[in-house]
C-alpha cells in the first residue's frame, strides 16, 4: 500500500491575513484510488486542490508527490473570451504538443470525438468537461486532480461522467483526487471520501462517512435522505431519452 501512495498531504494550514481557511488537513491518494473531497461552499476544497497543485503555498505542513509522478489537472471553470478563435484540437494541445491522431483517440476515450474541430466556445457544458478531461489525460498523468468535474452538466451527464472517471482509473491505474459538492453523486465511484469544512470532519469509505455524525451535522438529514434515495441507483443510468441503461459503459 505505502509503495503505491502517490500523494501525501500532511498537516496543511492555510490562512489569508490571519483568517484560517484550512487547519491541519491531511490525506493521501494511492495509485488506482479515487479520493473525493466533499464539503459545503467555502469549506476550502478548491484551496486545498490549489495547494496540492502547487498554485498556493500552505502556511504550514507539506505536500509530497511521489517523485517523477505527473499531474493532470481539470479546472472547475473555463471562461474563454469569445474573440479567441480556438478549436478543441488546439485547446487540448496548448500545454503539450501532440499529433491530431492522438488527440482524436483521447477525445474518443472521453466520448467527445465529434467536437475536435469545433470552436471551444461553441460546445456544450458536458462536452467542455470531457474536453478538459482529455487535455488532462494527454499528459499521461499518474495523479488526476479534478475540481468539480460535473459543473454545468445535466444529471444524466453527471452520472455518465463519474462512470467515465471510474473507468479511467481502472484502465489507466492513475490516482484521482476529486472535488464534489455532494456525496450522493459520487457514492458509487469513490473509494474514499474526505469530508472537509476547513478541517477534516470525517473521512473513510463513503458508506461509513454517510453515517458519520459529523457528516450528518454538516449536511443535515436532508442530505442523508437523498443519499438513501440515490444509493441504489449506481448499477444503471439513463440515456438521453431517459431510458434505463444497465451496462456500465459510458455513453458519448
Amino acid at each position, binding site marked *: 500500500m505505502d509503495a503505491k501512495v502517490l500523494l501525501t498531504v500532511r498537516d496543511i494550514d492555510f490562512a489569508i491575513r490571519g483568517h484560517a481557511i484550512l487547519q491541519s488537513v491531511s490525506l493521501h491518494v494511492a495509485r488506482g484510488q479515487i479520493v473525493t473531497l466533499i464539503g459545503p461552499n467555502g469549506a476550502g476544497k478548491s484551496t486545498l486542490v490549489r495547494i496540492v497543485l502547487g498554485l498556493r503555498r500552505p502556511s504550514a505542513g507539506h505536500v509530497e508527490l511521489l517523485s517523477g509522478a505527473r499531474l493532470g489537472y481539470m479546472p472547475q471553470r473555463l471562461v474563454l*473570451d469569445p474573440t479567441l478563435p480556438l478549436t478543441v484540437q488546439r485547446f487540448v494541445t496548448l500545454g503539450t504538443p501532440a499529433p491530431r491522431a492522438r488527440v482524436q483517440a483521447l477525445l474518443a476515450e472521453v466520448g467527445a470525438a465529434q467536437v475536435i474541430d469545433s470552436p471551444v466556445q461553441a460546445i456544450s457544458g458536458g462536452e467542455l468537461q470531457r474536453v478538459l478531461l482529455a487535455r488532462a489525460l494527454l499528459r499521461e498523468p499518474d495523479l488526476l486532480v479534478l475540481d468539480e468535474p460535473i459543473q454545468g452538466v445535466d444529471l444524466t451527464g453527471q452520472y455518465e461522467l463519474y462512470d467515465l472517471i471510474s473507468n479511467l482509473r481502472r484502465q489507466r491505474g492513475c490516482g484521482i483526487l476529486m472535488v464534489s459538492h455532494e456525496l450522493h453523486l459520487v457514492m458509487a465511484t469513490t473509494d474514499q471520501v474526505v469530508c472537509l469544512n476547513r478541517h477534516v470532519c470525517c473521512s473513510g469509505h463513503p458508506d461509513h462517512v454517510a453515517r458519520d455524525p459529523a457528516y450528518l451535522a454538516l449536511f443535515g438529514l436532508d442530505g442523508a435522505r437523498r443519499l438513501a434515495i440515490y444509493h441504489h441507483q449506481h448499477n444503471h443510468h439513463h440515456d438521453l431519452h431517459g431510458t434505463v441503461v444497465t451496462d456500465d459503459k459510458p455513453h458519448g
Partner: protein
Amino acid sequence: MDDFLLRALLGGLGVALATGPLGTFIVWRRMAYFGDTLAHSGLLGVVLGVVLGINPELGVVSTCLLVALVLVLLQRQRGLATDTLLGILAHTTLSLGMVTLAFMETLRIDLVSYLFGDILAVSRADLYWIWGGATLALAALALLWRPLLAATVHEELAQVEGVPVFAVRLAFMLLIAIVIAVAMKVIGILLITSLLIIPAATARRFAGSPEGMALLASVIGCLAVGAGLAASLYWDTPAGPSVVVAASTLFGLSALLSGRVRPDR
C-alpha cells in the same frame, strides 16, 4: 512620392505590423484599459527621459514598466477594482507628465504631437527606432507565443502544465511598453490603444486560428495606415486621427460584410 510621405508610410507600417499581433492578445485578455493606462504614462516617460538625460524612448519603456509594477502591487491589496486602479493611474500619470513638463522651462516639447502623434514628422532616426523596436517586439512575441497563449486561455491550468505564468505576464507587459514607446511618435499617446484594439477586433470575424487573427490584424492595421495617410493628404486632415478613423471604417465594413456572409452564432 515626397520623402516625408514615404517616411510617414514606413513608420506607420512598422507600428501597425507590431500592434496587430500584440493587440490580439490585449483583446483576448481584456486588457484594453490596461494598454490605455500604460500609454497615458508615456508622456511622463518622455519628460523623465529628457530630464534624466537618457533618450525619450527608454524613458517611456521604463515608466510604462514602473506603472505596470505599481498596478500589480496595488492589485495585491484587493481594496479597489482593477478598472478603478487603472483609471487612477492613467490620469495621474498623464497629469504628472504635463505638470512636470511645465516645470521644465528650458524643455520645448510639442505637446499636441505627443498626444495625437505627428506621423508626417517621422525622421530617418525615428524609422530606425520604429523598425528596430517593432522587429524586437515581434520576435519576442513569436518566442513567447505558446506559453502566452496557454496562460491567456487558463492561467492556473497553464501553470500546472509548467508555464512560468508570472514571468510570461511580465514579458508581455514589457512588449506592450516597447510598442507604446515605438508607436507614440506616429499615433500619439491618446490614440495608441486604437491601433492595438481595432485591427484585432476587425480580424476576429475572418480568422479561424489565433495565428491567423494576429496576421490579419497586422494586415488590417497596415491598410488603415495607408488609407488614413491618403485621406489625410487629400482632405488635409490630421494624419494620426485619420489612420484611426480609417481603422474604424474597416471595422464597420467588416461588421456589415460578415453580418451578410455569415451571421454570428
